[in-house]
């Protein structure tokens, strides 16, 4: 069950590239706006931005089909936008308003969508991983050909329940893609200070689960690997692990000044490997789009994000009775 590195380039159409550009840019601009609203005091508490990691979820979603499920941690805004959840509803949840996807009950870390098969944002590190296997179990039980994308971080990869889940997913041949979003840090702790193996996906070998490391700054590499993983699951061969090597540009959350790494480290990643810039280059050098085309897309996205922010500012506070609803049936 040797793990392999993905190297070859996927053939991709101009339309698809443009879509990737749009989807990643939406996440980036949305997160920048969330950061601004946070700075203005409209969002409080914990807010974890996805900036830098956009190619991960956009590449994964490119391999998803209708009915496939996704579940992730608290760093969840990107996942929701990428699976088509409403930007206004996400932003209004950040501001804790009635129009938020959880009606102000969940906040940044806890949103859900039945329609988009998004089983949440979860604030407790690692807790979503067994849930993801449970979703996959249900799909297998129903024999419906669906897969579940179960996302977690490099830090979460040290929780014991992850390995309980690997074992169960393997013995039950569950159609689950474990996506380890390895952004090299768990809060202030660099991976090497907390994790025994540099390549976390190799831990799957002990359970007989195949996996591979993927360049998470390149959306095409992510897409290609995702297709492989999904094909494996849909063929009934059980779980698959993708360790997507990525990087978060901002602090762990809005209250983290990120003093545990150097400015140069972040700057290097941004200037040399930015996922959006890479696609932008491909679009321009391949003559799939002109500067003007891209400007038009930027504008379009800016409008979507501004509208989301306006909605999040003007949607009313939830009524006090909401404190008492949805605790029991």
């Amino acid at each position: 069950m040797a793990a392999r590195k993905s190297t070859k380039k996927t053939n991709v159409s101009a339309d698809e590239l443009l879509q990737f550009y749009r989807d990643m840019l939406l996440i980036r601009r949305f997160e920048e706006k969330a950061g601004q609203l946070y700075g203005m005091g409209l969002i409080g508490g914990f807010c974890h931005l996805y900036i830098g990691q956009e190619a991960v979820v956009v590449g994964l979603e490119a391999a998803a089909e209708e009915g496939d499920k996704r579940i992730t941690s608290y760093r969840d805004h990107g996942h929701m936008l990428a699976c088509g959840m409403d930007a206004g509803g996400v932003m209004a949840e950040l501001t804790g308003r009635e129009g938020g996807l959880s009606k102000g009950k969940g906040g940044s870390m806890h949103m859900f969508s039945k329609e988009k098969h998004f089983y949440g944002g979860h604030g407790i590190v690692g807790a979503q991983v067994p849930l993801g296997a449970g979703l996959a179990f249900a799909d297998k039980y129903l024999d419906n050909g669906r897969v579940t994308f179960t996302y977690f971080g490099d830090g979460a990869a040290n929780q014991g329940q992850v390995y309980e889940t690997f074992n169960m997913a393997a013995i039950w041949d569950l159609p689950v893609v474990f996506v380890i979003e390895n952004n090299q840090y768990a809060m202030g702790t660099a991976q090497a200070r907390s994790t025994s193996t540099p390549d976390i996906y190799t831990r799957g070998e002990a359970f007989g689960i195949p996996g591979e490391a993927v360049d998470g700054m390149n959306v095409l590499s992510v897409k290609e690997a995702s297709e492989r993983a999904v094909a494996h699951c849909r063929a009934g061969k059980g779980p698959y692990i993708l360790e997507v090597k990525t990087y978060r540009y901002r602090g762990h959350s809005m209250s983290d000044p990120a003093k545990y790494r150097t400015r140069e480290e972040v700057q290097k990643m941004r200037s040399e490997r930015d996922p959006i810039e890479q696609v932008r280059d491909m679009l321009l050098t391949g003559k799939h789009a002109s500067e003007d085309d891209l400007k038009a897309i930027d504008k379009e996205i800016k409008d979507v994000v501004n509208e989301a922010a306006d909605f999040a500012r003007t949607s009313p506070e939830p009524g006090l009775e909401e404190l008492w609803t949805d605790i029991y049936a």
Partner: protein
Amino acid sequence: MTMIEAIREAHDVAMAADDKVVVYGEDVGFFGGVFRCTAGLQEKYGKSRCFDAPINESGIVGTAIGMAAYGLKPVIEIQFADYVYPAYDQIVSEAARLRHRSNGDFTCPIVIRMPTGGGIFGGQTHSQSPEALFTHVSGLKVVMPSNPADAKGLLLASIADPDPVIFLEPKRLYNGPFDGHHDKPLVSWKKHPLGDVPDGSDAVPLGKAKIRREGADLTILAYGTMVYVAEAAVAETGIDAEVIDLRSLMPLDLETIVASVQKTGRCVIVHEATRTCGFGAELMSLVQESCFYHLEAPIIRVTGWDTPYPHAQEWEYFPGPARLGEALNKVMED
């Protein structure tokens, strides 16, 4: 100094005095803790005495129990009390019970520190007050300081204690007292008398409450952040209440509580945690058992609601001076 600095100093004093003291947890070593409570300790004492743990609470607590059984004194941090549940089995089934089931051969002198409570817009996974989940378990001690001086002294006592201690740090108090008036600017500990933390290694004994305000008409039992809410409610209602800061829930200073309620004849209990089966229920029973014939009114509990800790309606949930003040007035009228 702030409560953060006081906690750091207690670690420093204990580590200097006893090389069996080791300190670890998530982000605790290199980074010095997300709240900075262990900043500088790794530089001073080296990586074998202050270090980072992976994110695995069960493993953190479990390894500490093993170390302690063999004679070390681990002081470990669970980054937020809300993350302790993966470790709950180790705390209840192993830490709390090791002494009894080994007939005293093996013991578990560990301190598990955890920031607790709300008031920081943390929502349901960063605001909980789980003290009753620990006070309910025989074999555990449970401590909650409300100010820097006590934080240092109680932490030193907890580290010296021969049994497992759950050390709950009200995170809303880390940088200054907080009375529930969230729209007022933060007052720093540097400008508060309890921010004057004594030098040296004097411990504040576990099981001793502190009367923060003497009064004749009514007794308020509080701990953590609620001590300041109680002081504010007393000032705002003008009721001559005695405010008791319990400081340690297990062991509990029942003597001080009973003496006060027998004097005042009235009692209000306040905590942030949810109401049903909260620590207030235990306090209410104890006061009723010991002071029934002295009581002139039913005891009232002012608590968080029986709901998940909210994201959007934090100040409706958080028992502030207005809600407590109403209860004080009611008990005086009854």
